[in-house]
């Protein structure tokens, strides 16, 4: 019954033996020991398991792992730079207290990353829309929204500096 599938996680190619019915989250957490993505409900409701597949945010707890064949998967573990520096979105969540208990945070940051990759300067409503599938019980979302908008500023500033340097 087992099948071998190949995909890329955080830039590294992987080959895993899986049961066809397994969701991606199970493979990430149990087979690849990438425990950053969390199981909050197992039903695609809470968003704690959000990772990016080919740049799009998905609920990995209900995403069939076979769908990932040949694709690029990005998890929270893939955001820290090779110099061990936090990604600006991660830094923004600390600076603006978008983190409390931290359980929703990896999923929240991945949804934010997907949004900012597509829309580098979102309005508050656009941020709220993009995070609508990520539940948080601690923050009331206000400081999460502030964190994402702060991250957008940091990223735009970085892009400008890089652009000016070229």
């Amino acid at each position, binding site marked *: 019954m087992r099948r071998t599938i190949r995909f890329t996680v955080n830039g590294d190619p992987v080959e895993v033996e899986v049961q066809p019915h397994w969701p991606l989250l199970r493979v990430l957490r149990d087979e690849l020991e990438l425990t950053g993505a969390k199981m909050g409900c197992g039903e695609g409701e809470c968003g704690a398991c959000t990772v990016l597949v080919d740049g799009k945010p998905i609920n990995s707890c209900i995403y069939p792992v076979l769908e990932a064949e040949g694709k690029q998967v990005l998890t929270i573990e893939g955001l820290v730079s090779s110099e061990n520096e936090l990604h600006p979105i991660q830094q923004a969540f600390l600076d603006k207290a978008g983190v409390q*208990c*931290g*359980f929703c945070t990896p999923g929240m940051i991945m949804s934010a990353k997907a949004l900012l990759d597509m829309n580098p300067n979102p309005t508050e409503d656009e941020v709220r*829309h993009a*995070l609508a599938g990520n539940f948080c019980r601690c923050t009331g979302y206000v400081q999460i929204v502030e964190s994402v908008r702060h991250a957008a500023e940091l990223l735009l500033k970085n892009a400008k500096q890089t652009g000016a340097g070229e």
Partner: protein
Amino acid sequence: MAEQFVGKSHPRFDAEKVTGKARFINDIKAPRMLYGKILYSKRPHARITHIDTSKAERLQGVRAVLTGFNTPDVRVGFLGDQIALKRDKVRQFRDEVAAVAAINEEIAEEALELIRVEYEDLPAVFDPIEAMKEGAPLIHEVDARGKPRRNNILPLPWKLEAGDVQKGRSESAFVVKDTFRTTWVHQVCMGTSGCIAEFDVNNNLQFISVTNVPFGGKDRLDMFLRNLGIRGSTRILTPYVGGSFGSKLDTDIYEFIAVLLAWKTKCPVKILFDRLEEFTASPPRQPIIGTVEQGCDKDGRLTFRVVEMILDNGAYTSWGATTPSVMMVPISTLYRVPNISFRATCVYTNNIYAQAMRGYGNPQATYVVEQSMDQLAVEAGIDPIEFRLINANEPNETSPMGLKITTCPMKECLEEVKTRLDWKKKQGKHDGHGVGVACFLHVGGGARVYRSDAQGLILKVDDEGKVTAITGGTDQGQGSETIIRQMVAEATGFRPQDVNIFQGDTEICPWDVGTHASRHAFMVGHAILMAGAQVRAKLLAMASTWMGQLISRNLQKKARQDPDFKIPDVDLSLLSNPENLDISNGQIFLKSDPDNKLLRLPVAQIVRSAHMVGTGRGEMIVAEAFYDPPNEMLNAEGKGNLSCCYTFGAHGVEVQVDQETGQVTILNYVAAHDVGRAINPMLVKGQIYGATIMGAGYGLTEEMQVNAGRVMNPNLLDYKLLTAKDKIPIDPVIVEPIEPSGPFGLKGIGEPACVPAAPAIANAVADAIGVRIKDLPLSPEKVLAAIKGKGR
């Protein structure tokens, strides 16, 4: 000297959480670990006539199958009214009937399917009022001591009488009386419940637990081990906790079951709830039926208040049954009321049982009192805010319950609401657009619910110049990892980034009563001031021994290396008196010459010299504190100064009600809070935002639909949490009266904002539609029905 770190919005320190490195219970595995699963009752009230586990036991990969028939009869819970695995009968759908440990989760689940349980149904009762009647089915035939029980009323006669209610009634020009209801709501922590239990060869239990009361949990598990006849003790380790909101105060039944499975198998056993179990088998906030009668004189001054509460306790008892002790606080003391009578009755039913949730009874009590306040204001013809201002609590007064109010900016908070909402223009129109207000008070300086309300703390300074704070407290997201660093830095003279924190291990950390009652910042703050002062004194004494010779040596070395360098003419003897020295940013310097770089040394160098001095003469820097605040346990009459200060505030809400759909939209929300002093204003706002949204959910959308004992919406699709899309424009107003009893002037802020949200929203909706809805939540269905039924 102005404070350097306290009072600043320092960024959070918990980088592990943004990188995915933070290890929650979900992420922890142990070698040889087994997975435990629980079989729950299929009936709300039935005798268990037979359990057949033979097929489950034969399944490959199963290591243990336990039931009430093959485990010792050890009572657990606050009133000792249950055993972990039920044997005689089941009393609710969440009753644990059997448990399995297997090599993986799939096999454990398959094994549960193979267990056959035969039941003989008993008549059930789901309504607390029915359950109180004579002849109602008895949920418990005997109490924990085997004494027969005659009815379903718990032996917890919560009662508070103060003043003379009859006299107050006779002095009243206006009196209102009404009954309000609240429903079950769940804490819905994003991280579900879980634990790992493991015995060592000496029968000691290592228990990885998501508790926020590690030492209380240790006591309960130690007693469980003793009653099982196991000679060993418990060490509790606490990983990152994915939220609590009260849900992690008690030791829950699944935790005792994990211990039983670990003892049986001698392997580590993990039980981790899925979301369905979290909703159906973890205890939420209990519902109440609250009848309130109160009056005022012709000038609007409150004359008396009588409150009767009935709590649906469910089938067993956890902390939910003790929430009336906190309900007493607002019932007796929210506004100045001279004559009080309060009675609460907790009733066993075949429903799910309840424990604590953010506010601990205060949200229900304030919901009841604050709606009645609006009704009385209408009766007396006084504007609701003016009515509250007439009756507002004042600083330095003692309430009928014996609560000694210190600082109290309630009036200031009400004025903030009035101004920021433009109250006068908007109130009283009943045109679908309305405003509402509700105040609150809550314990702000701990609460003496046990004989100790203390927290222990150890500070040590190492020879890298770092301070480690070893604390018995826990963090479940509130930000203690940030404010502890700010306060330790302030108290000791280091920088926040030089402070490390160690917590979550009962074997190493000093004792603490638990992170509950919004007490953590208050207690740890005091302990930090006590231990921090010792650290400073010890460091300065150590520096006075070492600085002169170290600096002299440094100067001579510099002179040898640099022929142009002339040793300055400084009086190094000044350095040998600790009173001449001070510490800042981890550097020790001469007070009289603070900018002189030659007369300044890093703490690291001094501590290292003191460590390396030779046999028998070395020293280290460690200080400890055990802070127990000057608050009182309630006496037999329910009176006493429960907390050493109280926090106050007012929430004001502006709503628009859609007359066609009943949908309530919040247009403006002012949350004015007395916090004593904000150690970190950004994190204080985080508590206000989060608790307000939780309270708004209580008011508008959240409800565990419990039908004949069964939770009908045990998932995140049907249990309606507010999401990022539900934009509520909260304006948090931080009022800082600087509390004299608080460390750095602070008061607790963890729970308060959850308290007044629902009544403020209910009052705004009543103002908008001209009719009052008396039970939570204010769903569009109820609002629409209220609008349609208005003329009747």
